């Protein structure tokens, strides 16, 4: 479909959003522009179809209000406990993952022939992350540390396994949270 400045006006005309002058101008244009006339005709067809369909308003089955009442009661009885369980599990899972990550990282460093000092560096790095980021310098230091640790860790197959596992775990957590957030029970207040 080719468009000119009148094409969109045709649609507005169907919606009664044009003033009489604009309508007259559009009609004059339609008389001379076969492209717009074609657009008009195809839109007119769609318009008629929709008007026909819009004459019918669908109604729910009998007993909609009763079904709503029982759903409301169900939601209120199943209040947000599952959200808290999920959040708790998420927290524990994250802590476990971080511990496993830090411990295995440290062990790998030591096994790879580094001294306890290397593990210490890693530990300090983690501490920096937690105390973190008041200044840009801290941020840059963290980045440098992560970069260096990252470079080393990439060479370790065990770390790859951990990365893959953690990606899968994160996906799973996100999915669980998404599912839970679909049920907006958490903000229902008991007013009965």
């Amino acid at each position, binding site marked *: 479909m080719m468009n000119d400045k009148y094409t969109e006006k045709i*649609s507005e005309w169907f919606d009664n959003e044009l003033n009489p002058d604009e309508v007259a101008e559009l009609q004059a244009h339609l008389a001379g522009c076969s492209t717009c006339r074609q657009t008009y005709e195809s839109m007119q067809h769609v318009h008629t179809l929709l008007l026909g*369909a819009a004459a*019918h*308003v*669908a109604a729910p089955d009998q007993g909609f209000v009763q*079904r709503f009442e029982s759903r409301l009661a169900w939601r209120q009885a199943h209040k947000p406990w599952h959200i808290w369980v999920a959040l708790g599990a998420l927290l524990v899972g994250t802590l476990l993952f971080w511990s496993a990550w830090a411990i295995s990282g440290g062990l790998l460093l030591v096994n790879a022939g580094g001294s306890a000092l290397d593990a210490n560096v890693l530990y300090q790095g983690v501490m920096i992350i937690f105390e973190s980021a008041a200044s840009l310098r801290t941020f840059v230091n963290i980045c440098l540390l992560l970069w260096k640790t990252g470079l080393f860790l990439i060479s370790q197959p065990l770390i790859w396994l951990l990365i893959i596992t953690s990606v899968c775990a994160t996906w799973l957590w996100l999915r669980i949270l998404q599912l839970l957030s679909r049920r907006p029970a958490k903000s229902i207040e008991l007013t009965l």
Partner: protein
Amino acid sequence: MNNTLTFGQQSFMNSSVATKQTAEQHVTPEMQAQEQVWAMAAQKGDSAAFMNIVDAYQRPVYNLCYRMLGDTTEAEDAAQETFLRAYTKLKTYNADRKLSSWLLSIASHYCIDRLRKKRYQMVSWDELPPWQAVADKKPQPEEAALTHERHDTVHQLLDTLPEDYRAATVLRYWYEMSYDEIAETLETSVSAIKSRLFRARQMLAEAVETQ
């Protein structure tokens, strides 16, 4: 040349008049006064008043969901969810606004979200809450009375539109809303609605041709 001009204000106005029976038609001024009383009572925690609101607006809300989702079971679920959302955010309802438009706004957003999620969803193991068993897949008596081909055609057509366009189209045709009202309901600008409806018509016209 002149006899090819079958378009014109005349034919257009005639078809426009035919829409007077809209989904919102039964909202009378008395009802509007009544709805404010219910809304205020419900805001104060009167759940019986809220049930009156559900009763009064089940049909426009359900119809919107049905036109958006194209399926009676999903429409029932979406309409119920709309009222649940309304119930939870009742405190945010502002009496300056028509209750019907507030409810339709919640319903539109819910259906748009739902359609978007559906597009990205692979498994539906969360889609079977206990109450869903209650709603049967049987067609509405009213729907059954419709000529099936025509009805299906329109739903198939609507199905080809992106969610936002579909919402604008449904609000325009079934609820006879102006651009301003649609923009308010969908929380967007009038110019966005203008171009959505224009694009929707173009897409529908193309879809009709390929049908």
